[in-house]
């Protein structure tokens, strides 16, 4: 009886199952369409901008005589380097050490800090732009506390980007450091080593592949961020290495060019976007490959 009922519905059930499995496959295909569409457009429209001038010249305002004469983006490349470099300079130590704290401490403060870091990574980065504007650009003057602002500068951008990086590094570093077997740590303690020595010479070296991945992933996220630096780094059309000066940056340049009324600038945005995506993907893939290689090397 049961078998007969089962046999009667079997064909229908199999048909439905096959249809739904096919639908899942269609969903996956649909999910990948944008990736290939974006990459295709980037290469198709961006690659022709890549010449020596694009990387070495500073931008020119498109003139009436020759609207295609728009120079290069060397100022934005250097600006991104300075802004993200300074940000990494203070975000990496704070992030890694705070990550070590999360991995080693079981205190209440550590639990609260972990939740704070998780919420911070999910907050819209534009909020950090407001923060940097209030603290660095115009300065803080409330309740008798007075911090002078230093105006539009690369430092203001670094401040926002660095704060964006810290919680990302913290969480990923914690995961990497927790992966270090407790037995190694305990062996160090049994030999009479101080916790500081164990951390510096055992735990961190062992977790190095994971830490490198953590830092590089946070950096690749930071390189592409536009919102936090929208109105804090000012604007500059010259190459400048001084972090207290106003600066340009690649993601911001894409935003400004894409929304500008000049056709040539809008087209050039593809060239910058291609460069940015290549940088981000190289860091992203590179960090994973490097970590895998380091892991293999040690075995």
């Amino acid at each position: 009886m049961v078998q007969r009922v089962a046999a009667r519905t079997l064909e229908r059930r199999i048909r439905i199952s096959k249809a739904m499995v096919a639908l899942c496959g269609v969903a996956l295909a649909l999910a990948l369409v944008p990736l290939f569409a974006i990459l295709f457009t980037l290469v198709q429209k961006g690659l022709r901008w890549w010449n020596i001038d694009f990387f070495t010249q500073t931008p020119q305002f498109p003139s009436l005589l020759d609207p295609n004469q728009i120079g290069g983006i060397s100022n934005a490349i250097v600006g991104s380097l300075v802004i993200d470099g300074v940000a990494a300079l203070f975000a990496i130590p704070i992030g890694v050490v705070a990550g070590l704290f999360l991995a080693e401490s079981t205190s209440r403060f550590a639990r609260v800090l972990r939740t704070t870091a998780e919420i911070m990574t999910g907050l819209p980065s534009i909020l950090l732009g407001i923060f940097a504007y209030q603290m660095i650009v115009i300065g803080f003057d409330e309740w008798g506390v007075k911090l002078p602002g230093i105006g539009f500068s690369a430092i203001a951008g670094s401040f926002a980007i660095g704060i964006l990086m810290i919680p990302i590094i913290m969480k990923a570093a914690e995961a990497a450091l927790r992966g270090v077997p407790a037995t190694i740590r305990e062996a160090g303690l049994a030999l009479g080593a101080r916790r500081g020595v164990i951390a510096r010479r055992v735990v961190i070296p062992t977790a190095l592949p994971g830490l490198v991945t953590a830092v590089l992933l946070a950096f690749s996220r930071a390189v592409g961020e536009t919102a936090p630096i929208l109105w804090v780094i000012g604007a500059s059309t010259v190459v400048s290495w001084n972090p207290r000066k106003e600066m340009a940056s690649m993601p911001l340049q894409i935003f400004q060019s894409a929304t500008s009324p000049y056709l040539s600038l809008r087209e050039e945005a593809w060239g910058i976007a291609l460069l940015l995506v290549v940088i981000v993907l190289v860091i992203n893939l590179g960090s994973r490959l490097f970590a895998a290689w380091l892991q293999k090397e040690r075995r």
Partner: protein
Amino acid sequence: MAEVLPTSPPTALSNPLLTGEPKRFSVKSDLAHWGVLYGASGLFALICAVFLISIIVSSIPAWRHSGLSIIYGRVWSQASNSFGALPIIAGTLATTAIALFFAIPIGIGAALAIVHVLPDRLRIVLSSLVELLAAVPSVVYGLWGLLVLAPWFERTVEPDLARVTGSKFPFQAPPEGVSLLLAGCVLFIMVLPMIVALSRDAISVVPHDQFEGALSVGATKWQVVRKVVLPGARTGVVGAVTLATARALGETVAVAMVIGLNPLFPSSLFSTASTLASTIALQFQDATPLQVAALGALALILMAMTAIVNWFGRRLISASAFRAGAI
């Protein structure tokens, strides 16, 4: 999403503890170690506290000026210093809803396909492709949305939709390209990798013997997925969707480029609109001090929304990971 890398214990010869100078290992207090750790953590905590205070303080003049009508007021006009953010909040929720409408079925379907349909080798390749999609900076999505999708929407998608639906609500013409619908679709593409990656993780920790057990009593593959896999992964999948919601609510630059920044209630899917984050992004630069404060109030609203949704999502994800570990 950095993986925890498995680590192998160093061999005795490479153990740094055995090669250093003996006197370095005398038992002393760990005070310096904890000092450094608490120093860095305290600094981060301090930054977060000052961050929160700074956003609140920056918005105070606006609350003094308009009171709670910032939240329920219907007119947002910089020119007349009228700050009612209800249309902007509505725009934020509408774009997020459009994004999730597409992203939930496609994202979960794709995750199911990755875990239960594809052969192993392809699974790794496609998983990394989806993660690459997550790494593309949001300004590039905005650029693509503005220069490629917007003209296509204006010429093809929106007129066709209007024709098919007879221009009834919410599909009234005129098609504008840059619109609520476009912003929602760009957001959909941006949150999709997040939903796929996180639900893939949740789906793949459902124990395989349950899957096989269900197959062995005669269930078809889809029946197993619907009755065993999805219920088992429910918490994690809902967590994934929640985190994606938080991301969609707060996405700034890409939306600012394709939404047209119109601080009125969107009357149709094809009309321009505005979101909290894009309004802050585009109006901050030329704002008077009072307007800056009003944008600070928007930031505070946005911060509260995303922080709550995010916290909730994180709890669901860790609850699902905990359950998977406990089984």
